[in-house]
């Protein structure tokens, strides 16, 4: 029997990055906000201090900051004719847990999507005709445009002090920036990071073959920065412990370094940690959320009523919670009916290892977003006519880290252990880098999320089941961009190169990126999406679902910028529209 608690104005499920954004915005509107977080409280000096954070074994390999699969996992299969099995060890992606969520251990590659992304279906058909979108590609526009989101991208960049070189400010091209980016209302708040030798060589090579290199926009600070909330970040020390680690030097934008110092002082904000929301409750009409049920660390169950529920967990958990709460209709790939779980996407991340031989790169000097980029083969920045695929990805010359266990560039034919392995490791550690693709993945009718019929979690709920494989669009795109990456790699005049493509089937074991998207997607109509353009649930108007679960496809960029802009956009809609009239914000 659960204990019923006093009602709150707003209940946030999960207190990671989007939770922090929503809490900050909605407390500013004067609402009483309560966040419920399954993990523990975390802060710089006690949880990832510079005295102990540089510990690869503890953080990278034992996953100290990540979700523990013994507590929460999913089952996986490539195709519907296979039996899905539980993921018993994290691999391909590394969802976070605890206060601050996954942004705590991101690299800090801080991107906007292209205007093309938000109107991808219309623009693709307009340029190439209906035939460019295959039958099984469930491609759709987002219901929001880049121009609408632009002010929220800008706010996000100012909140986080993003370091970068603009390429297009108010329609004016800026030298040294990304010439393909959407129109920006402002330049980046801080100048780009310094580049080490590796990215510099990459940029020289890319420029020499007519491409347009520019520095990666970065949430690692190029200089000290104080954000509009008055919270300061310190200059990055290029220690190379960003992704999979918390930053001990207050140099990487995260909930802890941008919002929490202000938010945690507010009297109208409360946080309950080590408490997991197990269900969103709805009334008998199933049109109104009444609150949530959660279980605390002692196993006690509580009913927490709320006027407004905002789901801010990691994308798979957002979708899972909607499914186990019976809100919405789960997508069925055999009929195409239902929307929940549809358009689950990932990314494809092939690379080319470049062995320079005579050039010392000192890779241990690095930062998560230290690198040079070319965007010439991303989005619709080039003519796809006759190529048989849409979209693309950015090609990067990153040197983010030289962490000794993880950084292993070995030429073709090197044994996996022994004296020859050691010799090759030593010879190549200082002189090798990778040219990589952040490849977009288009939605496919066969890729989806639903509930597993066999396996259950500790609360007795069915596990989420992921059915996912690479499809023709991204495999063809990979072949195309691999050739482009080889061109750049060869222009770097290396001793040798080694191609590392992905596929042909998606493998959930090796780490690729924590860029899972979709499943509770946004769109223009309830027939094709779970939430409307403001991330408001079509069936339950006092329920908002925030995060990359709303992406109808996955672009050729890291998702955090777009996740953040959408959260700020949704918060703004709640503050300025929903609170005045708590009803559906889009009429059907």
């Amino acid at each position, binding site marked *: 029997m659960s204990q019923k608690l006093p009602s709150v104005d707003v209940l946030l499920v999960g207190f990671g990055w989007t939770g922090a954004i929503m809490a900050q915005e909605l407390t500013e509107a004067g609402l009483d906000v309560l966040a419920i977080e399954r993990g523990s409280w975390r802060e710089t*000096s006690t949880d990832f*201090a510079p*005295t102990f954070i540089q510990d690869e074994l503890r953080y990278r390999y034992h996953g100290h900051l990540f979700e523990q699969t013994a507590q929460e996992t999913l089952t996986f299969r490539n195709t519907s004719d296979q039996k899905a099995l539980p993921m018993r060890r994290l691999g391909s992606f590394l969802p976070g847990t605890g206060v601050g969520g996954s942004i705590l251990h991101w690299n800090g590659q801080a991107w906007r999507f292209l205007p093309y992304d938000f109107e991808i279906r219309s623009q693709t058909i307009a340029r190439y005709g209906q035939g460019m979108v295959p039958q099984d590609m469930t491609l759709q526009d987002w219901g929001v445009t880049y121009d609408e989101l632009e002010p929220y991208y800008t706010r996000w960049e100012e909140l986080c002090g993003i370091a970068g070189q603009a390429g297009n400010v108010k329609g004016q091209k800026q030298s040294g920036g990304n010439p393909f980016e959407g129109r920006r209302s402002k330049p980046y708040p801080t100048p780009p990071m310094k580049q080490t030798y590796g990215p510099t060589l990459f940029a020289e090579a890319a420029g020499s073959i007519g491409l347009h290199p520019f520095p990666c926009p970065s949430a690692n600070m190029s200089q*000290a920065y104080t954000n509009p909330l008055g*919270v*300061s970040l310190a*200059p990055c020390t290029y220690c190379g412990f960003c992704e999979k680690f918390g930053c001990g*030097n*207050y140099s990487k934008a995260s909930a802890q370094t941008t919002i929490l*110092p202000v938010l945690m002082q507010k009297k109208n904000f409360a946080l309950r940690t080590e408490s997991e929301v197990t269900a969103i409750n709805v009334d008998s009409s199933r049109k109104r959320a009444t609150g949530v049920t959660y279980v605390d660390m002692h196993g006690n169950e509580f009913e927490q009523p709320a006027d407004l529920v905002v789901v801010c967990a990691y994308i798979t958990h957002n979708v899972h919670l909607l499914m186990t709460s019976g809100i919405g209709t789960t997508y069925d790939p055999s009929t195409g009916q239902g929307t929940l779980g549809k358009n689950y996407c990932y990314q494809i991340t092939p690379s080319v290892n470049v062995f320079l031989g005579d050039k010392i790169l000192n890779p241990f000097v690095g930062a998560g977003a230290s690198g040079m980029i070319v965007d010439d083969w991303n989005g619709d920045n080039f003519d796809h006519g006759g190529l048989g695929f849409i979209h693309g990805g950015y090609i990067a010359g990153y040197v983010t880290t030289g962490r000794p266990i993880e950084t292993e560039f070995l030429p073709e034919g090197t044994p996996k252990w022994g004296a020859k392995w050691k010799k090759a490791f030593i010879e190549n550690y200082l002189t090798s880098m990778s040219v990589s693709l952040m490849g977009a993945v288009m939605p496919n009718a066969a890729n989806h999320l639903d509930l597993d019929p066999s396996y259950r979690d500790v609360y007795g709920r069915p596990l989420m089941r992921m059915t996912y494989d690479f499809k023709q669009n991204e495999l063809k795109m990979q072949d195309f961009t691999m050739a482009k990456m080889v061109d750049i790699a060869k222009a770097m005049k290396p001793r040798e190169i080694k191609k590392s493509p992905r596929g042909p089937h998606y493998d959930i074991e090796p780490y690729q990126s924590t860029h899972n998207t979709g499943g509770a997607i946004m769109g223009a109509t309830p027939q094709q999406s779970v939430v409307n353009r403001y991330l408001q649930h079509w069936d339950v108007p006092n329920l908002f679902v925030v995060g990359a679960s709303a992406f109808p496809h996955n672009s050729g960029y890291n998702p955090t910028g777009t996740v953040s802009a959408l959260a700020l956009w949704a918060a703004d809609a709640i503050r300025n529209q929903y609170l005045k009239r708590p009803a559906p914000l889009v009429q059907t």
Partner: protein
Amino acid sequence: MTKQTLLTMAAGTALIGGWLVLSGPFAHAQIGDFARQERGRQLAAAGDCVACHTAEDGKPFAGDRPIETPFGIIYSANITPDPETGIGAWTEEQFYRAMHEGIAANGRRLYPAFPYPWFTKVSRADVDDIRAYLRTLEPVRSKARPNEFPWPLNHRIAMAGWNELFFTPGEFQPDKQQSAEWNRGAYLVEGLGHCGACHTPKNMFGSAKADQKYQGGKIQNWFAPSLAGDQRAGLGSWDTEDITRFLKTGRNDRTTAYGPMAEVIKDSTSKMSDEDLHAIATYLKSLPATAPESTEVPDQNVVRAGQAIYADQCSACHQAGGVGVKGLFPSLKGDGIVQSDQPLSLLRIVLNGGHAASISASPNALAMPSFGWKLSDGQIASVATYVRNAWGNKAGAVTSDEVRDLRKSVESAASSY
């Protein structure tokens, strides 16, 4: 209350009633008293009453916070208006006597952990206003635990002798040679601010040494640095703006407040008016330099070892040249805590780490991580000796024994709670 005020109040019959209620032991605040109460609130902030009179997770001003003294633990009093466990039954006269003479309503002598040797300087009007404010608080029924003092200190009569030796009651007398601002600063520093309670060294009886005013004092295993005009260890190189900003926000371009001072800033000085903070700075800047500079030349082997440790462990935040990052990480170059004659605070923060002050004007919740588990006594002594003598800094070498003793001392303090 003066005769004149009395007469003014008597002019309105309604106000007479108000005054009668106000001065009775069970009085409740009247609306017309708002200005007094507001003044009292600001004065109570200047006195930092809430810090000692609030237990961890306790109700504000309800007392029972353990105060470490060299003689034992004393538990602070409940100063909410609860008539039985608080000071609700105290008259204005009794409250003034406590502040002015250190004698409670029941005639018992208070221990000078309650800083009446400073509060005696506070004017009667200000004391009355503080009482008016305290009476607006919600009464909390809460009795403090008995003090843990050894014989003979557990007998309060012992304090009569102490007072005889070390205490002179008397309100602040302005110095007519000085500006009004200087006098306001002196009044706050010497009185309610009771800065000397920490920043002036104490004799073996726990009394501030009158001849070493503001030259820095040891308190709860911290060293409250000198506020005198010394260039290295004192405030000689700070300007009034540096001091004002530090007291208002907990940081300035030079440094950041940690330890007990972070609490003082959060609870007290950040809530004071800019004028009062500027007055304090003006007064402090008038204090002369006192201590001779260290002439000691540290062992170069120790300095070299310390330099290597600094590069590995400290330079990421405090930067290669020791200059820190403005507003975030304190500059060690030219810093007073670093160059204090007694390195206690420097060592303590390296050993245990600490949280910087976080207030709304400067919300960063920064912290120094602990190195105690990672560096040996010898390593900490080396790196401390290095930073005390690098980049133009100058101060005596630190020995491993000093680090070892402090480590033991803070460990035993931590385990006693």
